[in-house]
């Protein structure tokens, strides 16, 4: 039997999978899953009392504002706790690559978002939902907000410092979404990433043309790729090397 050398891509996948497992376990131990289960149950109770017309307006907004953007806050806590514990400075002596570390955090937080959103939507919404739009919308939203949180966390000294810095960012990202109420057909608003994300989630419950969906997906995907590359560079320079 001739031993075969492991494929490089297999090794990448294996490391990413191990990091992902560790992250999910950590988040489970920290009570993220428990809190979001309780929160989802609470939303289900409330949504169950509303008729579908109200729900079609309230549900996408709530799903966008809460479970989809959870990464924005939690990533700061996780990252800065790991920094305090000295885990980041040990990264160079482990086989784990920096991008694998970032991806693992992003995917694990995205997973909680997706679970919470699907649980609420499947049980509470009785009309038709375009689940492809919803899943794609939530993934892109979650990745974008987690990466934003990642960037802010890399420039923060402590968890408290992170909170101070994240509040203006949160305002900057979330407040333009309210403009959609007054100008629902203004195309330029879609250039604001948070508005584009909200449009995607909204599109799962309301008519959204396939062309607009594709444009929004391509736009958000490109933004996320650029943000991922930028986060990688900043994270390496600011957190790991320093």
């Amino acid at each position, binding site marked *: 039997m001739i031993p075969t050398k492991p494929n490089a891509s297999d090794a990448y996948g294996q490391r990413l999978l191990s990091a992902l497992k560790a992250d999910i376990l950590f988040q489970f131990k920290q*009570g993220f899953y428990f809190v979001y289960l309780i929160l989802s149950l*609470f939303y289900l*109770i409330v949504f169950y009392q509303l008729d579908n017309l109200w729900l079609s307006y309230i549900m996408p907004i709530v799903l966008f504002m809460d479970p989809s953007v959870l990464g924005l806050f*939690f990533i700061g806590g996780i990252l800065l706790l790991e920094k305090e514990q000295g885990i980041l400075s040990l990264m160079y002596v482990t086989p784990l690559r920096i991008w694998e570390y970032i991806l693992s955090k992003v995917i694990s937080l995205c997973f909680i978002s997706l679970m919470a959103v699907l649980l609420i939507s499947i049980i509470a919404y009785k009309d038709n939902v375009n689940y492809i739009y919803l899943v794609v919308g939530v993934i892109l939203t979650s990745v974008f907000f987690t990466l934003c949180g990642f960037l802010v966390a890399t420039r923060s000294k402590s968890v408290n410092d992170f*909170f101070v810095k994240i509040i203006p960012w949160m305002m900057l990202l979330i407040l333009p979404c309210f403009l959609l109420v007054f100008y629902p057909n203004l195309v330029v608003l879609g250039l604001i990433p948070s508005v584009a994300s909200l449009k995607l989630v909204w599109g799962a419950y309301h008519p959204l043309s396939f062309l607009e969906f594709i444009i929004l997906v391509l736009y958000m995907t490109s933004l996320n790729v650029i943000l991922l590359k930028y986060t990688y560079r900043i994270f390496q320079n600011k957190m790991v090397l320093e």
Partner: protein
Amino acid sequence: MLKLIYFKSDLKQLFREPMMTLLFFIPLIMAPLFKIILLIGVPFLQRFVTFSVENYHDYILAFVLLMVPAMLGIVMGFMLLDDKDGKIIELLSVTPFGRNGYLIVRLSFVAMATLIYTFYTYWIMGLYRLPILILIYIGLLMCTYGASIGMIFFNLATDKVKGLTYAKGLNLMLFFVLVDLLHIPWLTFLAGFFPTYWIYKIIENKGTAIPIVLGLTVHVVWFIMLLWITRIRKINV
């Protein structure tokens, strides 16, 4: 005299940390912000709905009032976590001030700020008229609520990530204010065990004795239970 020094030190810590300063002063901005949202949002909403938002002013007032102790309790919780990390509690436990003295000062700081902000928020919102005695009573109940939130943090959170998780979970208690709108008997029964529900009931019923007595009972039971848990757990000492 000794306690005054600790109050001063609390104030210093508050201003040293931008996050603490920000969160402690957010209630100052929050009330006018809600007022503006109501002034702009309600006429807009009224174009689409047939019911009058005015019928829900008691819910809105209870919700905004309760956000103050919830927020301040969490701020204090994070300050306590900072002290836990810095081993301050261990140091203080061997001084005449002791661990209990430390906790009393910290929690009364939240209580005092809550009381001041209660009057401020009520005055700014100007939504719903309450007898002054009832307002003072609500303010005092909310002082114990804010302190309870701080103690829950102190007892449960071992690090700031856990603190974040608990902050998210504890905020759920605010929604018990709105439970009567849902007309679910078991949920209303469950809400009865939480302090937040009784703040709304007192506001809704103004001078009625039952919510006043039951509200006091629930707040006191929560506070005593948390003090008892804190004493048993003796964290970091």
